[in-house]
Every structure is written in structure tokens, then in C-alpha cells.
């Protein structure tokens, strides 16, 4: 797709947002911008950014540009405190999204006759249903195992002739270990392709997964705010994520100043959707750090290509594919008696899986010599964390004053994962 075509798509999108979504009309007006003023793709720099906090404020409908009755589906991702960020979809959105995912899968050689085990979670999380619709559109056979129940996952991997596995990379590695423990060489499985995403991983981890199963492992990119998985995908060259250029405009900006950076420069990735009806995103600050490639890949997929995500601008952690913000943990602790507000999060890879432990300082006020009550306190915190974060967290109670205090910003996160 050439720049003139993309410019016309962008114009159409901005006018659509201005006309249909009160949020954008307000934001554009406040910034002194009108869609008619757009002359080139570079003019996008005059359009105000959209931040996650703004999206979150539109709970529970999402930042709607259509009548609520046209919404056919909602998804949500965890929010930084109480409310999750909701995204909604029209019928057309679901169809476009499915076609994007299908295009991604096609890049990995998946097609009719492929048997896909989809171990992404089905539900509010976009991963499961997103991959599912794309795979079905492609005519592949889908086994919708969703997440969890590893014994059953392994059995299906063995029994269904599964040749494509979709899940988080860490879960793939874990599955390979469980298969090996059951006395079967994972290489002997008919698996040939892995589509992995929803959490950061590295090339060395890719090699470990590829070696374990004897497969080719592809990185797939997505984010619920952008529509879900399928926003971008690696091609067989495994060098950078191709972002569909008729679906998104990607910019890289300086996270501090918001200034647009050039190709090759590392910064925060900013997305503008060119296809979304229900919840369009204009200049959405993803918080993901990467760069735009200045070279062409040579494959048939789009020329718009970003590097692997190398970090975050905020303190968001991705643990087992789930977004975790320290503020969520703070929120949980603030409601529990007998603990101070001081805590530290330790994340490690135990075997293949992320392991998250939260050190929580007891205040001593409630200490009454009963082991049972301390254990009860520990369990209550773990239970609350699970309810809010949706992942299992181990809580370790420590003595008052034992969490290091720092002068400036407290070091809340100790991430020991070697990705």
C-alpha cells in the first residue's frame, strides 16, 4: 500500500472519529486540530495522543464511536487499579480482526488442513477468541483448549495430530518439559509451527522452544486496545514484526517529549488504527519500547516493520501473559489490615514458567502469637491478589522495616527473569 492510499485511509479514519466519537471531537478541538487540515502522513504529529488512562475512563463500554446496540462483543484487559480497560467490536470489526489474524497465520504457513491447538485463554482476554476466529476463517481445524489443565493439553497435543501450537512462549516451554517428563520426546510430536505472543521473549528463548519441539516459532504481536492479537507478525525471516499497513499507522515517539522519532530510533510505539469501527484508537501510546525498521524485509508482508518489544515505558509487568501493574498490588494491600504499604515484587522463571512473589511487610499491630492467624493473613492476601490479577501470586510476609526504603522512587519490582 502506498503513502497516498494510506493518507486517504487516515483522513477517512480521523473524520470518522471526529464525527462519531465525542472523545475525539473534544480532544481534536482542544488541540486545535481538524481532520480537514491533514495534508500528509506527517501531519498526524499534530493529532493529540490517546493514553491508556483515557481509554480506561470509558469503562464499561470502551471509547465508543458507534451506537452501543451495534456492539457484538466486548473484551477487556486488566487495568492499573480497579477497572479493566474495555474494548468493543462491531460485526465488521470482528470480521476484519479475524482476517488480520488469518493473514498472520498464513505468514507462518498455516492453512486449510492445519490442526491448531489454541492454548490462549478464552474469555475477556483477546488472545483465545482472537486466534480462534482467524484460524477458522483460514479453514484450519481449531482445538480450543484455552489455558490451563496441562495434562489435558499434553494429551490433545499427542492425540489430535496437532501441528500448530498457539500460546505464550513460556507456556510452550513448560509444555515441552511436561511432555518430556511423560517419557515422550517432544520432537516426536507432529508439531511443526508455534505462534507465540502476549508476553516478552527473546531469541534465545525462541531457540530453546524450537529445539525442544523441533518446530519453527513465530512471534505474534497484539494488544487488546489495538484490537487483540494479529496486529503484527513475524514472517519466515523471523526478523521483526510486520504491522499490516492498511490496518495501522505506526509511529515511534520519544516517551518523554512525544516527539516523533525516525526509522531505526528506539522509542515508544504509537498506533493509529485504520479499520476499527467501535473503538478506534488514534495515536495510542502503547508503552511498548521498540523501533521501526528502515530496511525492507523482501517478503510479501507489509513493509511497516517494528523490532521485538524490548521494554516498557511504565512499570507494567507481563507475567504469564497477564498485565500486572504494581499499583494493583498496592490497591489490594491498602484494603488489608495488619500490613504496611511497603512491598516488593519478585519475578523469576522457575523452569519455564513465570513465578511471582510479593514480599509484604506486616505491621506487627495484629501479631498475637498465633501461627494460624498469620497463615490466614497470608492466604487472604494471596486470595485477593488472585481475584484482582487473575494469576497466582505467592505472598511472603516479612518483618516490619525489612523492605528497603529508598529516597526517591521505591524499587518495587525485581525482575530476575532471563528472557
Amino acid at each position, binding site marked *: 500500500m502506498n503513502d497516498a492510499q494510506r493518507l486517504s485511509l487516515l483522513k477517512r479514519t480521523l473524520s470518522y472519529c471526529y464525527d462519531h466519537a465525542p472523545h475525539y471531537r473534544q480532544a481534536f478541538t482542544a488541540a486545535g486540530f481538524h481532520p480537514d487540515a491533514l495534508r500528509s502522513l506527517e501531519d498526524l504529529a499534530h493529532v493529540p495522543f490517546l493514553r491508556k488512562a483515557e481509554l480506561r475512563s470509558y469503562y464499561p463500554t470502551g471509547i465508543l464511536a458507534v451506537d452501543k446496540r451495534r456492539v457484538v462483543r466486548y473484551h477487556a484487559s486488566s487495568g492499573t487499579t480497579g477497572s479493566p480497560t474495555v474494548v468493543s467490536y462491531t460485526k465488521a470489526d470482528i470480521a476484519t480482526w479475524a482476517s488480520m489474524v488469518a493473514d498472520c497465520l498464513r505468514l507462518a504457513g498455516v492453512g486449510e488442513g492445519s490442526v491448531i491447538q489454541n492454548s490462549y485463554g478464552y474469555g475477556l482476554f483477546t488472545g483465545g477468541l482472537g486466534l480462534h476466529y482467524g484460524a477458522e476463517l483460514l479453514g484450519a481445524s481449531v482445538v480450543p483448549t484455552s489455558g490451563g489443565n496441562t495434562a489435558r493439553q499434553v494429551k490433545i497435543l499427542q492425540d489430535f495430530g496437532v501441528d500448530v501450537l498457539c500460546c505464550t512462549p513460556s507456556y510452550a516451554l513448560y509444555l515441552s518439559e511436561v511432555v518430556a517428563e511423560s517419557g515422550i520426546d517432544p520432537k516426536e510430536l507432529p508439531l511443526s509451527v508455534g505462534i507465540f505472543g502476549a508476553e516478552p521473549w527473546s531469541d534465545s528463548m525462541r531457540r530453546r522452544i524450537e529445539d525442544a519441539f523441533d518446530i519453527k516459532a513465530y512471534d505474534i504481536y497484539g494488544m487488546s486496545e489495538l484490537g487483540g492479537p494479529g496486529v503484527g507478525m513475524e514472517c519466515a525471516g523471523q526478523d521483526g514484526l510486520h504491522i499490516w499497513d492498511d490496518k495501522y499507522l505506526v509511529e515511534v515517539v520519544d516517551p518523554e517529549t512525544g516527539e516523533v522519532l525516525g526509522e531505526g530510533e528506539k522509542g515508544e510505539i504509537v498506533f493509529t488504527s485504520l479499520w476499527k469501527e467501535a473503538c478506534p484508537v488514534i495515536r495510542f501510546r502503547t508503552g511498548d519500547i521498540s523501533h521501526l525498521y528502515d530496511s525492507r524485509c523482501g517478503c510479501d508482508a507489509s513493509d511497516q516493520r517494528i523490532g521485538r518489544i524490548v521494554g516498557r515505558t511504565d512499570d507494567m509487568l507481563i507475567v504469564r501473559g497477564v498485565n500486572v501493574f504494581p499499583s494493583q498490588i498496592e490497591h489490594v494491600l491498602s484494603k488489608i489490615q495488619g500490613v504496611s504499604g511497603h512491598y516488593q515484587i519478585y519475578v523469576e522463571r522457575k523452569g519455564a514458567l513465570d513465578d511471582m512473589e510479593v514480599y509484604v511487610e*506486616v505491621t*506487627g499491630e495484629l*501479631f*498475637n*502469637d*498465633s*501461627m494460624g492467624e*498469620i*497463615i490466614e493473613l*497470608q492466604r487472604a492476601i494471596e486470595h485477593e491478589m488472585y481475584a484482582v490479577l487473575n494469576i497466582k501470586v505467592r505472598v*511472603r*510476609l*516479612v*518483618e*516490619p*522495616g*525489612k523492605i528497603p526504603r529508598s529516597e526517591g522512587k521505591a524499587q518495587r519490582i525485581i525482575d530476575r527473569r532471563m528472557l
Partner: protein
Amino acid sequence: MVYQISVFMENRPGRLYDLTQALERANINLKAASIAETGDFGIIRCIVSDPDAAYDALTAEGFTVKKAHVVGVEVDDAPGSLSGIARALGERGINILYLYAFSIACRNKAILILKTDDIERTKDVLATALPHRIIGQEDIAAL
């Protein structure tokens, strides 16, 4: 009446030494101690020569400390002594939460430190029904 000092402690090497050092500096003698633990933390419970001084010394060192009543009872250092107590309490529906004991070999006696769900009734039962001598903090100090 006997006072017990209990301390919430992280389960890691060297932490007990911090505690014993604090007691030593305050010239406090440990008469009996027991540690209950889970993987991450433990509670050390001890009977000391001077509970008030121990409480102050440990609190000053930043420990999470609790001073509370437990029952101290003197029994014969002979087979069946604990059995009789366990039976007497059990029959009356009194639950033992934990206990630890030490013997005074020269006197053929043992001291049991008991924590139950009803301290007052426990003292009653032990002193009247069995009967045993309930010891006080002054007995501990004299040991």
C-alpha cells in the same frame, strides 16, 4: 502466672542470632524456647528470666514482639505425667494450641508450658482436678 515472649521472624539464616544477641546484651536468660515455622516465617516463643526487659529489648531492636500469659505447670518427671494432663483437658473440651517442656533433672520434675484456648480454666483444671502445681514468673526467675 508465666509470661511468654513470642516473636515473628523471617525464616532465614542469622535471624535467630540477632534475637539471642539482643537478649544477651540486655542480660536476659532464656529458660525455654520453641520455634514454630512455615516455609517463609516462624514464631519463636520463649520463657525468659525477665519478660518485661526482654519485651523492651526486642522491641527496641525492631522485632515484632508479643508478651502474653501461658500456663506453666510442674509435673513429675515420670511416664504418664503429660498423658494425665492431656486427658484432663481433653475431657473438658479444652484445646491445647501448643506446648513445650523442659525437665529439672536434679528435682525429678518437669515444667510444661501450655497454651490453650482457655487459659483460666486450664489453670483451674490442672490445679484442682489433678492436682499439679501451677508455677509463676517468680518460679521461672528462681530456676
